[in-house]
């Protein structure tokens, strides 16, 4: 261990902590934990620990459901799932990093697109390349069933960091009852932004009803309009590499053509013409009384309002099928269609999957559990009741949606197949800073009515965040 170095020099993390550079006014608590933590990390020798975004009660249920299958892999291992609650993924990731700092990182983490590049860039997880290559024969049916866009979204700098099992694309849900009352014909898949606004205008005539509701966040917010306007917050690119997987697992698959080593999010373009136009459109919707001021956060309130027929349309993914049903909506009282066409009908999506933590002492066992988690029969144990869209195409069936709806459930997967330009949300390694800035600048734009000024501010925020990362 070294002492304190001259400016610019480095010092071992734990030396700093042991020296007392731990905590204070909240922040200190974290570092204190790190100082006391187990530097080797990972779970104890008798358990395999997984972190999960959600409620602990659900996590415990899942843990109990999966335990018998884990016991078949290793009879002495206790599977432990710790739930982390939060408004959105940035809350989740902040708490995950707190656990890492506390010296109690998990073996496996269930994380969505939002956290993938953050985790990979900080080398918190291990690339799965070697494991996949070793077990490629056994995984052949998995890759054949998973759209390559989902796999590519889980790659970073040419390596595969997660095995995806679910995704949600930003489609448009609508209340069939409100559409009927307003005399609006249910939208077709190829509907346009004009059709959307026309429908919204008719629905808005009802007192106490909001024609279109949305929330401030990265996934499925005004960002869906931005994608349909062929714009983005960051310059789009792709990392080289990934041929090791594409050439073997997706040989001959047309949908895999042009896939590379993961999405490379470049310089901020938050105040580009298309982005400003998209946010301006949202402001205009608000001014016209077609959309209320949005809330910041995960969308639970929005879902509740939609379920009580107080919102005509909203952006949702496959998770809304289960969510609306759980909120009391009957099958048939809501439906889904593609996001309306603007300059294009490009959708955004986010995927969910599993990664192995670098500090895990049981990586081989964790890999076996990962394979188990992405098996078709495991999906409904992990996600009972259509609370997300299966990543496996074979699981997106009429039977699955027979009880919950929506009628046009096939839209969920067809977003990937019919709109090949559909892309993941822009979640760079500095996702947390991006999400914070995006939330603040969006609310600023809506309250001030000036999208350009807000997005100039966002551009500056993102340039600073990109520079600091």
């Amino acid at each position: 261990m070294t002492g304190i170095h001259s400016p610019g020099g480095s010092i071992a993390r734990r030396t700093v902590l042991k020296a007392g550079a731990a905590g204070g006014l909240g922040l200190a608590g974290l570092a204190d934990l790190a100082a006391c933590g187990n530097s080797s990390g990972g779970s104890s020798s008798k358990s395999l620990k997984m972190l999960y975004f959600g409620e602990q009660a659900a996590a415990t249920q899942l843990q109990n459901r999966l335990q018998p299958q884990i016991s078949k892999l290793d009879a002495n291992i206790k599977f432990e799932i710790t739930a982390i609650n939060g408004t959105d993924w940035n809350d989740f990731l902040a708490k995950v990093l707190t656990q890492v700092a506390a010296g109690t990182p998990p073996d496996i983490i269930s994380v969505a697109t939002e956290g993938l590049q953050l985790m990979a860039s900080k080398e918190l997880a291990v690339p799965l390349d070697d494991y996949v290559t070793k077990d490629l024969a056994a995984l052949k049916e998995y890759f054949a069933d998973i759209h390559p866009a989902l796999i590519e979204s889980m790659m970073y700098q040419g390596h595969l960091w997660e095995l995806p099992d679910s995704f949600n694309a930003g489609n448009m849900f609508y209340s069939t009852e409100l559409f009927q009352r307003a005399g609006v014909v249910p939208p077709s898949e190829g509907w346009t932004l004009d059709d959307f606004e026309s429908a919204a205008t008719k629905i808005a005539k009802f007192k106490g009803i909001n024609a279109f509701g949305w929330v401030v966040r990265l996934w499925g917010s005004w960002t869906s309009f931005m994608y349909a306007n062929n714009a983005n917050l960051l310059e789009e690119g792709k990392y080289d590499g990934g041929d090791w997987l594409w050439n073997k697992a997706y040989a001959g698959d047309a949908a895999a053509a042009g896939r590379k080593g993961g999405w490379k999010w470049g310089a901020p373009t938050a105040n580009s013409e298309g982005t400003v136009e998209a946010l301006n459109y949202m402001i205009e919707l608000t001014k016209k009384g077609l959309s209320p001021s949005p809330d910041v956060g995960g969308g639970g309130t929005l879902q509740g309002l939609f379920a009580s027929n107080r919102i005509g349309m909203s952006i949702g993914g496959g998770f809304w099928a289960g969510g609306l049903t759980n909120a009391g909506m009957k099958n048939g009282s809501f439906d889904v269609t593609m996001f309306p066409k603007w300059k294009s009908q490009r959708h955004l999506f986010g995927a969910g999957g599993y990664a192995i933590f670098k500090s895990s002492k049981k990586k081989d066992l964790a890999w076996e559990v990962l394979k188990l988690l992405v098996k078709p029969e495991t999906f409904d144990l992990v996600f009972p009741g259509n609370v997300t869209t299966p990543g496996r195409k074979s699981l997106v069936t009429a039977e699955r949606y027979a009880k919950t709806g929506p009628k046009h459930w096939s839209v969920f997967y067809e977003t990937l197949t019919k709109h090949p330009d559909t892309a993941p949300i822009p979640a760079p390694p500095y996702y947390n800073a991006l999400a914070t800035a995006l939330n603040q600048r969006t609310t600023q734009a809506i309250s001030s009515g000036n999208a350009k000024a807000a997005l100039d501010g966002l551009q500056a925020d993102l340039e600073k965040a990109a520079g600091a990362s």
Partner: protein
Amino acid sequence: MSAVAADVPKAVAQRRSHPTAHGEARFGFAMIALSVLFVAVFTAIPIIASLGLSFFSWDVISTPQYVGLKNYQQLFNDGPVLKSFGVTLGMALAIVVLQLTVGLALAVLVNQRKLVWVRTLFRTAFYLPLLASTAAVSIFMGYLFDYKFGVVNYYLGLLGIPNVPWLTSGFGAAATIVLIAVWQQLGFTFVLFVASLMSVPTDVLEAAQIDGAGPLRTLFRVKIPLISPTILFAAVVALINAMQLFDQPYIMTKGGPGSATTTVTITMYQKGFQNLQFGYGSAIAIVLLAAILIITGLQFLAARKLVFYQ
């Protein structure tokens, strides 16, 4: 020197060396040890540690880098962070002024009630919000003041008043949060003032009455000067609390719209826990601590002229 005087140091020395005296001392130290340990572990060491951390760049995962005063230089050139100090100060001043004036007004009114049970009822009613969890209150208030479906806008709508953007306009959000914070913290100043007003000597009040002072004159010339030490204490505590405002804006507005309700503590949380700039977050915490110390010092300076000690 008299014999008695000469015996005093001897007696003291005997008492000090007495086994019982040692036992008492040990017991005394043991009694305060837990408190000292608590303050050291949860207050003193973390503050010192935070000061240390503020000279580093650290993202939790990588090795910390010593950066000297760079975090502080960055802070004083960071517009949004400086703005959050301004927002915090503005909201804190509004909270303190309202908390003191409304708390005092209510205390005076309640104190005038002759019936004990009426006083008890009001004391309980005003104190109750203080016992509720701030997070729970903030979530609840967020629903009440929601633009779309909030109960407040619903009833205003029945009166023909259009929806008010309580939490979705800059001024509205700041004002709503201030009012909620005042409502919740009011019980603290109120109870202090009630107790203090009850301790004002009755002979002084009777003398004022005999001299022909009316209720207002008695309040401003007799009661308020006599309870001014309590007012100072309430002002200091209220300001320290208000400068650390976090729960209400974080839960209800996430610091928005824009940065209208982004307080220093929210900025600190965002920089530290969300952006993984723990050194920078610590520097913000230290500057906030310094700001609170300076403002509290100014309050005590002002108190030299304004506070009347009997």
